[in-house]
């Protein structure tokens, strides 16, 4: 009987903890947005973050874009040729990339690179009492550390997505037209005919949403590294970083479904 009671107690405690965590996550979102309207506003810091999130991810994103485009070219050709519609390869590659693969894969790669780095950075600050120091200096740590990263990400991620799109579509062209012999005219003409403003709009909206998810989750995890355990060491930081990437990625994939269904 006592075992039953203990089980219920621990389940209840666990549920309360998770609820509290969710609440804290929600408040964090609020503070992150509130930071847009308060000092300190350091423009230079935002620029540095755009460089960190955007410029430093160019190679990874370009690389991923290229190989995604190439695979799409191959698979698309194979699938379409079963129906005799190889000429549609341009449409297939462009639409897949612009609507889905561009925003999602870019966000996932940048989360893995920049999201984890930001989480680690904030986690290290947390365990070294630097975030406490900011609070004691009457400086809002959310406005100082998190909001600039959000602004930078909202600027950088859509641009990176566009870069992915271009690289991907071009690589698909190289494989489809140069390698597999699809008619160059059909490829490009197909693209022009099928891609609409609504598709590009979807891609941009997605990358903006993914920006928010990536920054929100990654910085949250780093900001509170070790806080629940009361233990502030490197192990807490590395665990937070792993969590940040996993949860952000799941968030991006779930958010992707939601945005897609909303916009379709």
């Amino acid at each position: 009987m006592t075992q039953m009671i203990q089980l219920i107690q621990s389940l209840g405690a666990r549920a309360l903890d998770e609820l509290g965590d969710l609440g804290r996550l929600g408040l964090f979102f609020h503070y992150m947005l509130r930071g847009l309207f308060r000092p300190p506003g350091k423009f230079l810091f935002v620029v540095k973050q755009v460089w960190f999130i955007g410029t430093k991810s160019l190679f990874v994103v370009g690389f991923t874009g290229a190989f995604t485009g190439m695979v799409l070219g191959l698979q698309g050709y194979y699938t379409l040729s079963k129906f005799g519609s190889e000429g549609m390869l341009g449409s297939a590659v462009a639409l897949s990339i612009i609507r889905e693969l561009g925003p999602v894969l870019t966000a996932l790669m940048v989360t893995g690179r920049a999201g984890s780095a930001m989480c680690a950075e904030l986690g290290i600050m947390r365990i070294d009492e630097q975030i406490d120091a900011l609070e004691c200096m009457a400086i809002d740590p959310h406005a100082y550390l998190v909001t600039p990263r959000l602004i930078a990400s909202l600027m950088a991620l859509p641009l990176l997505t566009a870069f992915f799109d271009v690289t991907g579509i071009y690589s698909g062209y190289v494989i489809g037209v140069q390698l597999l012999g699809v008619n160059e005219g059909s490829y490009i003409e197909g693209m022009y005919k099928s891609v609409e403003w609504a598709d590009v709009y979807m891609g941009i909206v997605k990358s903006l949403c993914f920006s928010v998810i990536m920054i929100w989750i990654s910085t949250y995890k780093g900001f509170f590294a070790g806080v629940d355990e009361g233990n502030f060491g490197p192990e807490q930081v590395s665990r937070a970083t792993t969590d940040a990437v996993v949860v952000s990625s799941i968030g991006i994939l779930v958010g992707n479904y939601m945005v897609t269904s909303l916009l379709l």
Partner: protein
Amino acid sequence: MAADDIIEIRGLTSFYGRRKVLHDIRLGIPRNGVTVIMGRSGCGKTTLLRHLIGLKQTSRGQLFVDGQDFGAFGEDALKRYRRRIGVLFQSGALFNSMTLRENISVPLGVHTKLADETIRIMALIKLHLVGLSGFDNYMPSQLSGGMRKRAGLARALAMDPEILFVDEPSSGLDPITAAGLDRLLVELKETLGMTIIVVTHELESAFLIADQLAVLDEGRVLALGSPDEIRASTDPKVVQFLRREADQEETDHSSYLEGLLRAG
């Protein structure tokens, strides 16, 4: 508690989860004096400090600052309080991506409209005060632990605080540097009338600089008074602490031997 106490602690009880770490603390911090809070590791002195700087909410008991109820402080009042205080954290808590001068300039840049040049000179003055002249362009990672701590003190002094909180000043410092720091703290009190609160377990420093000593043990105030009064205390735990006597061996030898000799 005297009428001239800048901070009054009445019946403060604090928990970490369900664990009680402070029991009904009653303590007054006199204005313009050095109060040292000391005790063994785990006695609750760091928790008490965190309450005084607003990093931990008071769940039971009251804190008064200048006669005003700290618990009733809204965001603005808390902000105003924090602009009057400086905090030196145990590791110095310097921001890693900035030079020493930039570190000290952070609160000045956020809270004042002083010109860059004025702030630069103020930072150099504070660095000279802590014996770090010439290191203004160094990054924290280029410095030893002791130097980082001194730089942290310079930053804590940046806004000319009325109240200075110091968490374990001597830890990690060689005796000569520690003595220099002690001397500086006394000088700050005497020249500027700064109220200084030091949390430490270093006996020598404590007796040298304190106007009032509070000895904590297991979350309770064991003894409170001037250095002479504490030295004259007859309470066995206080005497043990002052004489740096190791705990009496209370281990149960039979269970120890049993554990060793038990077949594994």
